[in-house]
């Protein structure tokens, strides 16, 4: 059975029942399983070069951050992902940006903050939470979590309700309040732009990982960002985590961020 039909059945089912698990209903339909008798049936697979992990994570070493370095990372990311630069502040879209310590870690501010941290720009991006409230809130699964922990956006599916933005405790998400294309200085053809009316955010460079490349920001970070598999005890990121005391943002909310900070 083709896919439109299955979606339609789901749709009809849900309309008829009002609620309940319709996917079970669809799976009971004869022929909904893919034909498996032919070994040569069309199928899909991962690219050979792809970097894979059980749970991707990042460590940000604030001791190595400088304003210039942060600028470089932001530019690399926003160029790679066609992130627009709107004049109107209300329409701002950003995947990675900097802020001061007291804003990145609002619960950890104190009067006697170390000199070094005062005014130091610290990068902020989606935390790729292991227990992501944005995924829980999304009514269409347009925001979903992959097996490897990456919290992804399906721009095709997003209805623009912005529930995920209210749910994210880190302000990591941006909404396309208008067509982004006129505000993109130089379009990168390897990555789509978005259209007005959908939400976007950092995707941990899923498209680059598939090609065997490290995230764009990590690549230009001169070692300030360490990226790797949190569940592989032999990975570099685990080594860094073993050797340093790290903190996560708003840890008390139970979101379990996959982005760690060395202060």
């Amino acid at each position, binding site marked *: 059975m083709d896919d439109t039909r299955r979606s339609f059945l789901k749709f009809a089912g849900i309309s008829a029942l009002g609620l309940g698990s319709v996917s079970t209903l669809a799976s009971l339909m004869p022929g909904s399983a893919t034909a498996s008798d032919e070994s040569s049936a069309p199928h899909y697979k991962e690219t050979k070069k792809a970097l894979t992990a059980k749970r991707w994570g990042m460590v940000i070493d604030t001791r190595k951050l400088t304003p210039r370095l942060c600028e470089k990372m932001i530019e690399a990311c926003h160029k790679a992902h066609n992130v627009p630069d709107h004049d109107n502040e209300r329409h701002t879209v950003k995947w990675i940006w900097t802020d001061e310590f007291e804003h990145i870690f609002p619960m950890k501010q104190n009067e006697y903050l170390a000199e070094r941290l005062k005014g130091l720009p610290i990068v902020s991006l989606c935390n790729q939470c292991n227990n992501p409230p944005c995924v829980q809130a999304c009514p269409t699964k347009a925001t979903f979590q992959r097996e490897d922990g990456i919290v992804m956006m399906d721009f*095709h599916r997003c209805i623009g309700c912005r529930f995920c933005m209210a749910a994210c405790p880190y302000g990591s998400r941006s909404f396309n309040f208008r067509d982004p294309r006129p505000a993109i200085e130089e379009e990168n053809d390897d990555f789509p732009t978005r259209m007005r009316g959908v939400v976007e955010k950092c995707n941990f460079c899923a498209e680059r990982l598939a090609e065997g490349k490290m995230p764009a920001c990590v690549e230009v970070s001169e070692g300030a960002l360490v990226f790797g598999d949190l569940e592989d005890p032999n990975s570099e990121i685990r080594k860094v985590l073993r050797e340093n005391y790290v903190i996560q943002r708003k840890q008390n909310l139970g979101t379990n961020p996959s982005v760690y900070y060395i202060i």
Partner: protein
Amino acid sequence: MKDKGKIIVGLVIFVVVLTFPFWYNHGVATQAPEPELTKKAKKADKCVEETAYMRKEHMQILDKWRDTVVRDGKRMYVNANGKEYMASLSNTCIDCHSNKEEFCDKCHDYASVEPYCWDCHTYPEEKE
């Protein structure tokens, strides 16, 4: 029912308005357009699947591709003959069919469908 007359007049107007596009186009039936192939596409001879299938089902394939790429992270499509393709509109389809206007738009315009692929994905003409 005192208003029978009015109701009937109303109904007739409603039906006429509703079917207006059919009346309007009546008798001006146009030839269904033939999509044009680029040299590259001609040379390749075969698309990712049989031509007849592609004509009828290309939207289903694209739909499946985007779901599999975005949601399952599987970016390679292996067809029935075991041939592998990157499942990518901008990089695979448009690589051969770089003539969007003569290939895609012609039929889509004829059938009055407006896929929103190009709101986000790029095609060659735009590249300059």
